[in-house]
C-alpha cells in the first residue's frame, strides 16, 4: 500500500499541468479486455484516469480461468529432481546409488546441457485460475489532444496468484550406468502422474506496451496495445510446486522462452526455484468514458 501511495504521489508531481481536461471533459475510463476473455470480458477490467494532458494511471484486475496444455522440457524434470526430497525420489523408484549420483550432479547447474533438452507435451490439460492485480503509468504522445486519447507508451506492474488443478505427468530422469560421468548421462526412465488441486503459484510481471486509444461516439474507447512482458513465477510450497512454477512460467503471457533461476542457496541451504520468462502480449480493450 505504501508503494502504491508513493507511486501515485510521484506520478501526480510529474504529470500535473494546468491544462488537463480529458477527452470531451471526461478523464476516467473503465475497460474490459476482449482478447483474454471473449466469453467473460468482465473478468478482466482496467480503470484509467488522466492525470494531466499527457499522462494517465491505470489499475486493473483480471480473474481468468484457462485450460492449458503446456509443453515441458527435460529441464522441468531436472527441476523436479532438485526440488524433491530423498523420500519422494525413493517413492518414484530411485535407487540409493542414483540418488547419490544425481545429488552430486544436479545441484551444479552446468551439469545439464540444455541444448539437448527433450520436449514433451502433456497428455491432459491443466486448469489454471489466475487472479492478478496491475498498476501502471501511461505517457501519451499527442500534445494537442488530452489523455486518454492517442498513441501511448505504458509501463505496468502485475502481481497475483495462479491456482493449478489437474494431472501432472513427470518424465523421471535416470542415470545411465554405462556413461556415468558424462554431461549427457540422463535419460527418461518412465513417466509418472500425480494430481494437483488448487496449488498456488505466485506470479509477478513487468509489461512495457505501445498502443493507441481511440474515442468513438463520444463515450466509447477502443484501446489496442502490444508489447513485451517479463514475468516471474515462484512457488510457496517447496515440494513439487517448483516444477509447476516452471511450467506456468511459459504460460503466463511469456511466449518467447523461460529462464530458470534454479540454484543452490548456500545461506539457507535450500533450492531457489524461481522462474522468469519473456514474451509478447497483445491487448484489445473496449471501454466507456465515465466522467
Amino acid at each position: 500500500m505504501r508503494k502504491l501511495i508513493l507511486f501515485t504521489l510521484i506520478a501526480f508531481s510529474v504529470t500535473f499541468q494546468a491544462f488537463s481536461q480529458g477527452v470531451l471533459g471526461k478523464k476516467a475510463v473503465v475497460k474490459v479486455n476482449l482478447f483474454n476473455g471473449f466469453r467473460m470480458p468482465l473478468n478482466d477490467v482496467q480503470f484509467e484516469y488522466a492525470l494531466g494532458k499527457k499522462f494517465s494511471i491505470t489499475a486493473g484486475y483480471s480473474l481468468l480461468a484457462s485450460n492449458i496444455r503446456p509443453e515441458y522440457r527435460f529441464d522441468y524434470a531436472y527441476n523436479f529432481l532438485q526440488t524433491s526430497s530423498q523420500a519422494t525420489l525413493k517413492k518414484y523408484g530411485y535407487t540409493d546409488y542414483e540418488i547419490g549420483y544425481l545429488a552430486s550432479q544436479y545441484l551444479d547447474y552446468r551439469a545439464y546441457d540444455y541444448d539437448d533438452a527433450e520436449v514433451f507435451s502433456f497428455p491432459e490439460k491443466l486448469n489454471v485460475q489466475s487472479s492478478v492485480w496491475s498498476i501502471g503509468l501511461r505517457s501519451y504522445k499527442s500534445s494537442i489532444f488530452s489523455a486518454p486519447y492517442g498513441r501511448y507508451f505504458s509501463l505496468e506492474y502485475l502481481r497475483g496468484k495462479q491456482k493449478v488443478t489437474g494431472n501432472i505427468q513427470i518424465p523421471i530422469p535416470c542415470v545411465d550406468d554405462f556413461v556415468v560421468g558424462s554431461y549427457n548421462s540422463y535419460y527418461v526412465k518412465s513417466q509418472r502422474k500425480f494430481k494437483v488441486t488448487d496449488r498456488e503459484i505466485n506470479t509477478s510481471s513487468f509489461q512495457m506496451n505501445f498502443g493507441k486509444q481511440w474515442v468513438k461516439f463520444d463515450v466509447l474507447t477502443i484501446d489496442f496495445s502490444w508489447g513485451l512482458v517479463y514475468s516471474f513465477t515462484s512457488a510457496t510450497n517447496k515440494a513439487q510446486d517448483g516444477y509447476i512454477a516452471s511450467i506456468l512460467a511459459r504460460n503466463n503471457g511469456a511466449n518467447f522462452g523461460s529462464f530458470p533461476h534454479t540454484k543452490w542457496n548456500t545461506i539457507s541451504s535450500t533450492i531457489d526455484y524461481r522462474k522468469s520468462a519473456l514474451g509478447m502480449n497483445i491487448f484489445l480493450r473496449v471501454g466507456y468514458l465515465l466522467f
Partner: protein
Amino acid sequence: MHTDSFQNKKSELQKVICINPTFRKFEDTDFDDEDYEFASKFKQLYNSSIEKYSKKNKLNYEVYSPYSEGEKLTSYYKDLLPLKSAILKSLNVQDNPMNEVESNTYKKEIIQKFVVPTMLPAELAELVGKYDTPYFSLVDIYTSNGKSYLFHVIVDLNLGRIEYQEIKGYSGLVKKSEMKMFVYDSFYLLDKFFKK
C-alpha cells in the same frame, strides 16, 4: 503539432456572435483541391458541436450562418460577411503557423514592409449596438492531407482589435471524434482564460 494562443484582456465574456463556423477539407497541401462532400457532411455536426460545447462551458455563443433563417440570414450577408472578411485579412498578415509555407521569404518580406497591427475597420463598430455585444468570433477548421488547423478568434469591435486568438495544429486528418475534441478543448480553454 502546434499550439498558439493569446488573450489581450481578462474580463468576463458576454454574448459572442459566431460567424459561420467553417469546416474545410483539402485534398492537397496547397489548399487548391477541396473536398466539399466531406465538408458538407461535417457541417451540421460541427455547428451543433459548437453550440453544445459552448453551452457546456457556460459561454453564450450565437451562431449566424448562410443556413440561418429570417433576419439572421439577412444580417449574415449584410453585416457579418464583411466582418469575417476583415478578420481573415488581419489574420493573413500575421506570422502565425497557418501562414507557414515552404518558401515563405516573399511573404515575410511583405509582412515586414506592410505589416499593420491587427486592427479592424472603425466603421464595423456600428455592429456593437446592433448585436448588443462587441464580441464576434470565428471558429474554423482547415484540414488537408498533411495537417489540420483549428483557429478560434474573438474580436472586440469597441477596440477594433483581436481580443483572443487560439491556433492549434494537428498532424493528421480531423475526423468526427477529433473535431469534437478540437471544439470542446477550445471552449474549455477559453472558459478557463476568461474566468481567471
